[in-house]
């Protein structure tokens, strides 16, 4: 029995090594998205522009206040504007849902394209009336910070050389949000 002690020890050690080496080695995966104050989902991919300009401009002649926003990153640009008639010269903006109508409420999706020998942002499709909305949920006119959401789609019709429609593609700009985003108030007087 005594002669077996050491071999039994070593056998147990080898067994333990085998058991532990075969522990779970499955991959663990996590995805985190940007927490940027301005972001959207373009065709399924999160997009957080590194350049955003947000303005509220008052035109005393037409008594119209216009919120306009441009975000740019990675050869993509999202623009929207909301014109509010019969407004006063104050830095606030009326909260509410503004449906895109092609007149007072507009949106556009642009991509950087080669045109005339240089790269410029050109509309990628058309955002038609009823193609989405901009919702203003909060505004702090003292700090000049605005919060809201937006979503719309831009439709592109592709033609062949004979002018026949060969396909229609749609760019979906969804889950757009801007949170306490600073804006600049100007009076066009």
């Amino acid at each position, binding site marked *: 029995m005594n002669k077996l002690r050491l071999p039994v020890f070593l056998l147990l050690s080898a067994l333990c090594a085998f058991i*532990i080496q075969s522990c779970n080695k499955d991959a663990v995966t*996590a995805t985190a998205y940007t927490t940027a104050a301005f972001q959207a989902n373009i065709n399924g991919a999160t997009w957080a522009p590194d350049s955003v300009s947000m303005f509220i401009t008052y035109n005393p002649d037409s008594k119209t206040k216009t919120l306009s926003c441009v975000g740019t990153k990675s050869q993509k640009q999202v623009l929207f504007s909301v014109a509010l008639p019969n407004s006063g010269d104050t830095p606030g903006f009326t909260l509410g849902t503004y449906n895109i109508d092609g007149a007072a409420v507009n949106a556009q999706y642009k991509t950087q394209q080669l045109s005339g020998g240089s790269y410029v942002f050109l509309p990628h499709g058309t955002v038609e009336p009823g193609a989405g909305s901009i919702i203003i949920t909060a505004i702090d006119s003292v700090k000049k910070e605005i919060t809201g959401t937006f979503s719309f789609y831009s439709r592109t019709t592709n033609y062949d050389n004979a002018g026949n429609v060969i396909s229609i593609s749609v760019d979906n700009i969804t889950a757009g949000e801007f949170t306490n985003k600073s804006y600049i108030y100007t009076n066009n007087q």
Partner: protein
Amino acid sequence: MKRVYIIASLFIIIFTAFKAHAQDKAQDNKIYEKSYIALYGGVSNPTGNYGSTDYNNNKSGFAKKGVTFGIEGAIYVYKNLGIGYTLSFQDQGKLIYDDTYSLAQNYTTSYAADGTTVSATGRYHNWNILVGPQYSFVYHKFVLDLRASAGFIKMASTPEISVQVTGVPEQTAIFYQRKSSAFVVGYGGNVGLRYKLSDGFAIGVKGAYISSPGPSIKTEGRTDNLGRLVTKLPISEFQTTLGFTIIF
């Protein structure tokens, strides 16, 4: 630095005891400890950088509490002074979801990216091969073992981490923090208490600390070094174990 003091203190205690016994040699009629070998197992806790999950610390290891087992023992060369040895295996777990999510969040911030996907595969496995002087104090059936040791740590594997950031034109490809397997130097110390069940068998508990500068870590596929960049993985472990001893 504190660890160095502890290990140096162990050396001093062992050699002081050795000297004291040498002085008692003339009237000594004690029965000294016999060499032994033990099979042991228990818990291995990563300490310091090894267990840290701080993204901003490039030495953070994200290692987890795991199991250790191995064989250890001592060959007594002069009275109760011997050469102790340890061959042990450690499993220090793997990255969990919270770790990969934290890395993904922070890489997103570092790269000003739209998003980041982090995937981690594999576990922390290492073998410790350590030897060093040991002195044993005997009180009836109890034996207190003090040992300082040094040797090698064989990193059998470390997790491989892949990172894919989106919305960053300069970093469109996935980059990888490759797994590492290398021999590195290690050192440590331990204190054990054995209880003799008979002349041939004993059971015991042991606390051991092991430290190492750790292996180098390679990263591939990065076009720039924004954010966390790991080049070295320092290892430090504190282990609490139970053992079964054969005395021969």
